[in-house]
C-alpha cells in the first residue's frame, strides 16, 4: 500500500473512490473525503515547504484554518494557479496539482536552508532592516534576491477563466460555525420560524463532532449531526452554507462570507458554475459559534516535521483514517491533549510517552490512558527535538511547578512524532472586527469576546465552554435570546444527552524552558509562518519594544497569512513575562478582517472587464464608433476625443478639425453636458443666490453664462442657464460636475432656504445635444428648419423652440468656440436622426465632426476656461480675470461673495490666469509646467504659477497657453520662464488669454 500511514478502516473517507493528485511533480493517491493535507500525511510526505526566513524544512502542523506551514500553490495550468491555499482546508479531487510555494531548488534540498542552520544568531529580528539598509542604492538588488529566496506563492500570469459572483443576503439569525453550539442554535432558530443562515468553513457540518468519539443520545455524535442537518435542510427559510468562511464582521451586523462552491470539484469550475461566491449579509442577529484553536507548545526545534498540534493528530486519525507517524510522544498542559495519545494507541501504533507538564494531573482522560498502560511522565516537558526533515527523537526533562526552568536530568526518547497541547484559544477574531476588545480570562487561559455594540451572541468554545454538553446548551440559549429579541416565539428543542467528561485544571505555560537560556537555546518557534522565535520576542522587548503592537511589527509575529492563529497567544505570554506584566496589561494585537485569505476573484465578483464600471454613451455613440472616433473618459461618459482619418496623426486630425470649424462648420456631440431643469416661483431668486452674476432680468428666450462658487469664494463649476418661462429655467453644468451641482442645489434648498418654492430635476439624459459651429453653421441649420434663424430673429445668447429635421428642438445660440454657433437639443431618441440629417446636408459645407480635444483648443484660442482644468478649487472669479461675471451689488449675499472678500482673497500677488505666448512659437509648453520670474535664481526657485492649458493652434500657426502667474493681470508683456525636467528653459510672454478675435466679431454675425 502506497498510503503507508492510512488505516484499514475508520474515518469519514470513501476508500472505494481513489483520487490521484500531484505534489511537486510526483503522483500520489488519496481518497474521496480527504483534504490535501490528510492525503499528504497518508502518503508519508513530511516536508511540505521551507520556512519564510530561515528556510527550515516544515511539515503539516494543524488540521484547519490555523495551519501556518502547509501553504500550497494549486493549479494544473498557468491560468488556474492559486497561491496561498491551506492544504488543511483544500479538499482533495481527482487530478489536483499542488506544489510547495518556496524552496530553491526544491523543498528537500534547499540552498537557503544553510542560512537557517548556520544562522542561529545571524538572523535576529530586524535582520533585514539592519543588514540591507545600506547603501540605499543597493536595495533593488537585495530585494530581488530576497524575494526569490522567500515568497509564499505566485499569482497566475494569465487571466482566471472562472467566474465569481456576489450575493446580498438578509436574515434574522446568522449562525457562524456548525459545531455542536452552532447546530443547536440554528436548530432552535429554524424551528421558531426565523430566517437563518448557517455557515461553516468545512465541507461537512459538525465541527469538532466530526473527529470526536463522543456519543449523543447514545449514538455516535456524527449521527446527531446528520439528523439536525437533515431537519435544517427541510426549512424554506434556512440557508445552509458549507465550505463558507465568515471572513469579516463589519458595522451594523454586516458580514461577508466567502463560499467556495467548486474548489473541491476540479481545477476549473464545471461549465456554467460559479467558482466562488461572496455573500454580503445583513443579519438582525449573529450567533458566533466559531470554536477554539489548540495552542501548540513552544519548545526547542518545535518546527521539525513531525511536530503537530495534539488535536490535529486526533483529527487525522479519527476523521481521515491517517496516523501521521509510528511512535508518538505527547506533551500537554491539560487533559484534552490526552485524546491524541488515546487515539494513536487505539489505532495500533506506539505511544512512547505522555509528558504532562503538571505535577499530579487527574481526570477521566488520564484514567483512560492509565487503563491502556500508557507511559505518563508528569511534572516534565519535551525540551528539545532531534532530527531535521523528520523528528527522530526528543529530550524530556522535569520542570519546575511554574514551568520556568528545567529541574532535573534529561531523558532521550526515540519517536517520529511530537504532539503538543498548550490549551485552547477561543476563536474571537470576528467578535473583534468591529472594534470590541477581548477580555483575558484566567480560568480559561485565553481571551474571550469583549463587550460589543453589535447584535451579537456567542456560544460554545468561543466562550471557553469546551464540553459538548455546554456548547449545545449555550447554542440553544443564544438562539432563544435572539428569537425573543426578534419578537418570535421560541419553539421547543430538546438537546441530546452527552457524556460529561471530568477534566482536571490546566497549567498555564506559554514557553517550555530549556537547559540553556532562551537566547542560546535552539530555536523555539512561536510563529511558524514568519519564523518568529521566543528568543526573537525577548530580544524585541530588550531592545525597548514594550507595546505588543510594536513587538508584533518588529518581529513580524502574526503578520503571515495565518495571522498568528496558532502563535499569537504564546507570543503575548512570552512578551508579558519578559516585560514583567500580566497578559491583560500587555494586551492583544487587533484582529482585522479577513479571518482567512480571500481570493481576488471573490472580491471582484462580476465587477470586472466590461462590468467594472458603468459606461455612459450618448445617443450618437454608434455613429462616432462607425466613424473612427478615438474616445476619452469624462466621468463615466465615453466622449469622442478626435476623429482621425486614415493615416492621420492625432495632431494632423486636430489641425484639420480646428481649421474646418473656423473656415466652414464643425459639429460636436455635447450631450454629456449636465442639464438641470429648475422650476418654481422662486427659481430666479435661487439662481441669483447660487451664481455669482445677476439673473433678475434674464428674459424668457434668453441665455446667460454663470459661474458657481463655494462659500469660500472659489469657482467650482460654470455653464449656461436659459430662461424657458418666467418660473422655468434649464441650467447646464460641466459634464463631470453634473451630479455634484445637482446635490449642491438640493443642499442649499433643503437646509438653508426651504421656504423658497423651487424644484430641481436632472434632465441630462433626456436630451441629445449637438453643437454646430463655424461661419456656415447658420446656413446649415436653416436647411433643416422652417424657423427663421437669421441674426435678427435668433440673436446671440437667444434660444428658441423650433422643428429641426422634422422633430421638436430647442436651439440655443451660444458659443464655446467664438464662432457663430448653434446648440441643437432634441429628445435623446431623435439624436442620431438629427445628427445624420445634419451630415446629409452638411457634406457640401465640409461639415467636420470634432471631439473634446478640438473643443479644448478652440475655446483656448478664445480664452474660455474649463472648470476643473483652469480652476482647481483655489481660484476665485477675479483670479480668472472674470470680474465681469460677478455682481457684488445683488441684494442677497450670493454664495461665494463673502468668501472672495476675505483678506487672503484680495492680496495683489495672487496667482491670476493669463495667456502665455512662448517666444519660440513652435514650442508647446507642457501643462503643469511651473513658471519662475528668474531662471537663474538659486534652487529651490520661487515658483509663480503653473500652465493649465496648452495647445498647438493651427488657426494661429503657433502655440498658445493659459496659466497662472503671480500678479499676472498687471504684468502684460512681461516674461515668465518655465524650466523643464529635461533642463531646457522655455521663455514665454504674458498676454491676454483671448488669442483670437478679441472683439468677438466672429460669433456676432
Amino acid at each position: 500500500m502506497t498510503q503507508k500511514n492510512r488505516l484499514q478502516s475508520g474515518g469519514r473517507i470513501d476508500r472505494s473512490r481513489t483520487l490521484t493528485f500531484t505534489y511537486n511533480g510526483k503522483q500520489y493517491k488519496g481518497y474521496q473525503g480527504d483534504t490535501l493535507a490528510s492525503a499528504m500525511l497518508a502518503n508519508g510526505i513530511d516536508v511540505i515547504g521551507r520556512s519564510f526566513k530561515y528556510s527550515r524544512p516544515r511539515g503539516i502542523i494543524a488540521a484547519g484554518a490555523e495551519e501556518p506551514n502547509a501553504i500550497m500553490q494549486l493549479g494544473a495550468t498557468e491560468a488556474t494557479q492559486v497561491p496561498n491555499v491551506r492544504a488543511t482546508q483544500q479538499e482533495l479531487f481527482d487530478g489536483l496539482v499542488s506544489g510547495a510555494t518556496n524552496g530553491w531548488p526544491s523543498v528537500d534540498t534547499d540552498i537557503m536552508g544553510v542560512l537557517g542552520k548556520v544562522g542561529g544568531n545571524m538572523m535576529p529580528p530586524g535582520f533585514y532592516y539592519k543588514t540591507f539598509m545600506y547603501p540605499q542604492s543597493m536595495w533593488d538588488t537585495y530585494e530581488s534576491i530576497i524575494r526569490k529566496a522567500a515568497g509564499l506563492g505566485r499569482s497566475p500570469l494569465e487571466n482566471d477563466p472562472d467566474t465569481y459572483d456576489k450575493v446580498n443576503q438578509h436574515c434574522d439569525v446568522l449562525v457562524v460555525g456548525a459545531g455542536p453550539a452552532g447546530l443547536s442554535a440554528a436548530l432552535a432558530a429554524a424551528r421558531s420560524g426565523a430566517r437563518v443562515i448557517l455557515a461553516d468553513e468545512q465541507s461537512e457540518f459538525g465541527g469538532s463532532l466530526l473527529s470526536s468519539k463522543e456519543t449523543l443520545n447514545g449514538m455516535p455524535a456524527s449521527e446527531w449531526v446528520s439528523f439536525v442537518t437533515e431537519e435544517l435542510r427541510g426549512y424554506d427559510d434556512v440557508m445552509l452554507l458549507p465550505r463558507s468562511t465568515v471572513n469579516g464582521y463589519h458595522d451594523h451586523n454586516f458580514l461577508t462570507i466567502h463560499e467556495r462552491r467548486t474548489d473541491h470539484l476540479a481545477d476549473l469550475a464545471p461549465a456554467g458554475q460559479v467558482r466562488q461566491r461572496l455573500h454580503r449579509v445583513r443579519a438582525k442577529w449573529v450567533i458566533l459559534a466559531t470554536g477554539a484553536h489548540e495552542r501548540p507548545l513552544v519548545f526547542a526545534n518545535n518546527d521539525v516535521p513531525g511536530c503537530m498540534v495534539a488535536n490535529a493528530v486526533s483529527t487525522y486519525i479519527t476523521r481521515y483514517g491517517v496516523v501521521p507517524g509510528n511512535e508518538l510522544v505527547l506533551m500537554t498542559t491539560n487533559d484534552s491533549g490526552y485524546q491524541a495519545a488515546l487515539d494513536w494507541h487505539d489505532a495500533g501504533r506506539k505511544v512512547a510517552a505522555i509528558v504532562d507538564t503538571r505535577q499530579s494531573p487527574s481526570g477521566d482522560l488520564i484514567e483512560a490512558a492509565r487503563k491502556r498502560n500508557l507511559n505518563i511522565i508528569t511534572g516534565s516537558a519535551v525540551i528539545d527535538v532531534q532530527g531535521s526533515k523528520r523528528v527522530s527523537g526528543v529530550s524530556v526533562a522535569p520542570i519546575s511547578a511554574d514551568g520556568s526552568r528545567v529541574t532535573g536530568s534529561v531523558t532521550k526518547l526515540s519517536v517520529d512524532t511530537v504532539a503538543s497541547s498548550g490549551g485552547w484559544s477561543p476563536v474571537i477574531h470576528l467578535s473583534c472586527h468591529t472594534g470590541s476588545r477581548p477580555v483575558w480570562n484566567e480560568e480559561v487561559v485565553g481571551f474571550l469576546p469583549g463587550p460589543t455594540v453589535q447584535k451579537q451572541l456567542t456560544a460554545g468554545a468561543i466562550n471557553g465552554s469546551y464540553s459538548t454538553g455546554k456548547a449545545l446548551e449555550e447554542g440553544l440559549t443564544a438562539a432563544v435570546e435572539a428569537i425573543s429579541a426578534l419578537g418570535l416565539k421560541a419553539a421547543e428543542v430538546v438537546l441530546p444527552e452527552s457524556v460529561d467528561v471530568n477534566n482536571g485544571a490546566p497549567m498555564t505555560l506559554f514557553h517550555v524552558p530549556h537547559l540553556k537560556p532562551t537566547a542560546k537555546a535552539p530555536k523555539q518557534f512561536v510563529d511558524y509562518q514568519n519564523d518568529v522565535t521566543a528568543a526573537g520576542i525577548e530580544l524585541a522587548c530588550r531592545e525597548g519594544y514594550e507595546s505588543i503592537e510594536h513587538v508584533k511589527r518588529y518581529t513580524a509575529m502574526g503578520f503571515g497569512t495565518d495571522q498568528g492563529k496558532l502563535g499569537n497567544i504564546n507570543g503575548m505570554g512570552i512578551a508579558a513575562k519578559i516585560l514583567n506584566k500580566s497578559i491583560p496589561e500587555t494586551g492583544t494585537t487587533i484582529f482585522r478582517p479577513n479571518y482567512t485569505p480571500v481570493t481576488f476573484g471573490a472580491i471582484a465578483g462580476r465587477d470586472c472587464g466590461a462590468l467594472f464600471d458603468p459606461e455612459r454613451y450618448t445617443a450618437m455613440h454608434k455613429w462616432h464608433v462607425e466613424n473612427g472616433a478615438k474616445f476619452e473618459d469624462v466621468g463615466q461618459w465615453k466622449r469622442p476625443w478626435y476623429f482621425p482619418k486614415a493615416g492621420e496623426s492625432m495632431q494632423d486630425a486636430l489641425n484639420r478639425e480646428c481649421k474646418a470649424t473656423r473656415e466652414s462648420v464643425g459639429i460636436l456631440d455635447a450631450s454629456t453636458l449636465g442639464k438641470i431643469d429648475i422650476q418654481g416661483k422662486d427659481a430666479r431668486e435661487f439662481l441669483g443666490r447660487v451664481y455669482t452674476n445677476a439673473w433678475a432680468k434674464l428674459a424668457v428666450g434668453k441665455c446667460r453664462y454663470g459661474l458657481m462658487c463655494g462659500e469660500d469664494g472659489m469657482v467650482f463649476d460654470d455653464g449656461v442657464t436659459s430662461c424657458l418661462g418666467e418660473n422655468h429655467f434649464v441650467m447646464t453644468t460641466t459634464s463631470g460636475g453634473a451630479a455634484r451641482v445637482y446635490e449642491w442645489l438640493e443642499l442649499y434648498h433643503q437646509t438653508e432656504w426651504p421656504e423658497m418654492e423651487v424644484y430641481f430635476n436632472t434632465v441630462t439624459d433626456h436630451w441629445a445635444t449637438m453643437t454646430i459651429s463655424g461661419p456656415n453653421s447658420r446656413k446649415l441649420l436653416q436647411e433643416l428648419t422652417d424657423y427663421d434663424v437669421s441674426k435678427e430673429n435668433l440673436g446671440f445668447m437667444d434660444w428658441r423652440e423650433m422643428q429641426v429635421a422634422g422633430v421638436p428642438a430647442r436651439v440655443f445660440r451660444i458659443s464655446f468656440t467664438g464662432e457663430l454657433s448653434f446648440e441643437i437639443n432634441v429628445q435623446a431618441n431623435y439624436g442620431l436622426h438629427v445628427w445624420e440629417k445634419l451630415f446629409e446636408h452638411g457634406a457640401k459645407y465640409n461639415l467636420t465632426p470634432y471631439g473634446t480635444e478640438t473643443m479644448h483648443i478652440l475655446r483656448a484660442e478664445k480664452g474660455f476656461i474649463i472648470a476643473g482644468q483652469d480652476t482647481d478649487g483655489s481660484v476665485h472669479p477675479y483670479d480668472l480675470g472674470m470680474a465681469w461675471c460677478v455682481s457684488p451689488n445683488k441684494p442677497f449675499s450670493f454664495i461665494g461673495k463673502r468668501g472672495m472678500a476675505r483678506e487672503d482673497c484680495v492680496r495683489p500677488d495672487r496667482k491670476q490666469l493669463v495667456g502665455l505666448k512662448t517666444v519660440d512659437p513652435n514650442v508647446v509648453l507642457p501643462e503643469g509646467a511651473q513658471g519662475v520670474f528668474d531662471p537663474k535664481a538659486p534652487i529651490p526657485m520661487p515658483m509663480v504659477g503653473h500652465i493649465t492649458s496648452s495647445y498647438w493652434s493651427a488657426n494661429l500657426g503657433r502655440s498658445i497657453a493659459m496659466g497662472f502667474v503671480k500678479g499676472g493681470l498687471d504684468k502684460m508683456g512681461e516674461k515668465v520662464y518655465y524650466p523643464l525636467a529635461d533642463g531646457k528653459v522655455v521663455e514665454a510672454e504674458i498676454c491676454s488669454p483671448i488669442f483670437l478675435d478679441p472683439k468677438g466679431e466672429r460669433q456676432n454675425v
Partner: protein
Amino acid sequence: MFHIYCPHCGEYREEEEFHPAGQAHIARPLDPEACSDKEWGEYLFFRKNPRGLHHELWVHAAGCRKFFNMTRDTQTYEIKEVYKIGEQPSVVAE
C-alpha cells in the same frame, strides 16, 4: 458598512445609497457681510471631531435625494437617531 434608516423613505437602506455631508446644524450666517474674516473662517472651516456622539448631515443620494441629520457615535459607529432638517436631536452628548 452602515445600515441607515432614511427618515423620509421610512426604511433601512444600505450605506451605498447615502453620502455624508459633514457636520450638521451649521447655519449659514444670515448677514455674511457682517461677519469678520475670523467669524466667516470659523463658519467655513472649523468642524468638531468628537470621540463619541456627533451630529452629522447625510443625504439619501441614490434614493429620495433628501438631506437629513444623524446622531452617530464615532467610536462604536452606532447610529443613535436620524431626524429631519429643522428638527433638533433628542440624543445629545453630555
